């Protein structure tokens, strides 16, 4: 055990924790006033649910002793045997309980990310059922495949430093499916669905960026030079993407917006996530620039074209940005940054790009199919979507019996 590493990972865990309240605000500012509490609640209750799920079953499913490369065994149910001694399979210099906690925060934020795509229209009980089932049947296996010792995507050689596949692609595509299954919000395209509080979204984006240092640098699992490199790459890609979005927006629509620059930063953070510990800072600039541009195009052109109602762009940002990031890792990864990694296309090894593409494909197919099944199963037991009247009144009042800003006078 190393106190420096342990200190680093505990604080990184706290930083990653903060991302979910940050996400609540990021999303909350983008919905209409009458739905903001419902949107905050999505993230908040997920913190509660997933913290318990992870301790009870999630962690052992994801990181427990491998079963055929597909899932972890139930050996560590209820944290049985997960204590203060390090688990050298994952992190030799920090207590196993700290590694568990760090991973927990990833399991917490991922279902919360999904909630952006179906904001303003899902019933609360259906949401809870969805989160628990999705976490158990999609997130936990996927985390095992990619990060678990023996997991088959890891064995295949796919690189995912901090969760491009596990967190972003999975949540993005799953979100798209939920949005499609639930259908569009009533009045979309006719009524204004403009954000109700952009400074709240900016605050959320700031907390996300801040927490993302824990997410990516912490994924080095120690206070090492590699962590430092991941830290710098994270910041660089976010910065490049924020600037890229602002520029593209200006070219396309005449003006750079604050909401755009904040969205761009998040797109860049998503894009760099899988490669943060494998690429150089200069590559990160490129990854960020492209990340900002493709997410902008996905959100402002592709979405309109296909007409799905990905309300807060969970798919546009995390699905698209994550896919680009996974592929970009296949292009720009270099062993000079991380000897435990691999060289990418740009460094003469085309095969990595193939592996990355395959891992994306598997992740997408799995997430899409499993999400669809889960929704159908839940749909057998309860309604997924609020009534028209509840939607018109707003989810704050109709689902939670509260207003966000009740002091009218």
């Amino acid at each position, binding site marked *: 055990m190393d106190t420096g590493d342990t200190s680093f990972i505990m604080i990184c865990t706290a930083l990653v924790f903060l991302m979910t309240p940050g996400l609540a605000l990021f999303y909350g500012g983008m919905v209409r006033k009458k739905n903001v509490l419902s949107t905050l609640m999505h993230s908040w209750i997920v913190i509660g649910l997933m913290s318990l799920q992870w301790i009870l079953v999630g962690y052992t499913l994801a990181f427990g002793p491998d079963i055929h490369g597909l899932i972890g065994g139930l050996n560590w149910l209820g944290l049985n045997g997960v204590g203060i001694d390090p688990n050298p399979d994952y992190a030799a210099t920090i207590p196993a309980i700290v590694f568990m906690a760090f991973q927990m925060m990833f399991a917490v934020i991922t279902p919360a990310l999904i909630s952006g795509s179906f904001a303003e229209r899902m019933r609360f009980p259906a949401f809870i059922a969805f989160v628990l089932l999705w976490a158990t049947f999609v997130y936990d296996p996927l985390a095992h495949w990619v990060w678990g010792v023996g997991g088959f995507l890891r064995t295949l050689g796919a690189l995912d430093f901090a969760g491009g596949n596990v967190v972003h692609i999975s949540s993005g595509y799953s979100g798209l499916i939920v949005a499609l299954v639930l259908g569009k919000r009533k009045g979309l395209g006719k009524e*204004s669905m403009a954000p109700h509080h952009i400074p709240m979204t900016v605050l959320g984006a700031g907390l996300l960026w801040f927490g993302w240092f824990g997410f990516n640098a912490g994924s080095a699992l120690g206070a090492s030079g590699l962590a430092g490199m991941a830290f710098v790459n994270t910041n660089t890609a976010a910065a490049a993407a924020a600037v890229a979005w602002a520029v593209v927006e200006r070219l396309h629509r005449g003006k750079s917006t604050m909401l755009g620059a904040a969205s761009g930063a998040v797109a860049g953070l998503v894009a760099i996530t899988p490669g943060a510990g494998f690429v150089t800072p200069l590559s990160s600039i490129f990854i960020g620039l492209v990340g900002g541009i493709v997410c902008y195009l996905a959100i402002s052109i592709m979405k309109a074209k296909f007409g799905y109602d990905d309300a807060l762009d969970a798919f546009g940002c995390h699905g698209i940005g994550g896919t680009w990031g996974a592929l970009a890792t296949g292009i720009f990864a270099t062993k000079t940054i991380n000897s435990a990694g691999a060289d990418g296309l740009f460094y003469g090894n085309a095969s990595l790009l193939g592996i990355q593409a395959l891992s994306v494909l598997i992740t997408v197919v799995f997430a899409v199919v499993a999400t669809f099944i889960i929704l159908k199963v839940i749909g057998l037991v309860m309604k997924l979507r609020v009534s028209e009247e509840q939607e018109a009144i707003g989810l704050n*009042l*109709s689902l939670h*019996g*509260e*207003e966000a800003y*009740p002091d009218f006078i």
Partner: protein
Amino acid sequence: MKKIEAIIRPGKLDSLKDALGAHGVNGLTVTQVIGCGKQKGQTQVYRGVEYNVHLIPKVKVEIVVMDQYVEEVIQVITKVARTGEIGDGKIFVSAVENAYTIRTGATGENAL
């Protein structure tokens, strides 16, 4: 000249504006209000304290028009803002004696 004051559901504002525009009525002023009448308010609970909030968010649209358009405007509003559920709102009509356009100094019906 008459002032038509319509208190409607907030969600109906955009379509009312469009419908009025289609009938050539472009000038109007909108206020955020809360109101009560037959519609029951939602119960709200904050840390276990229950508030039976009777005042419900509405939107007040004020349109000043020449007398001959009153009928038409009221028909448009009644059509667009109706859902058939309690809480659709009211329209009140009253007399306006004079109007001025600040920019041009025009008065009376020319000011509209």
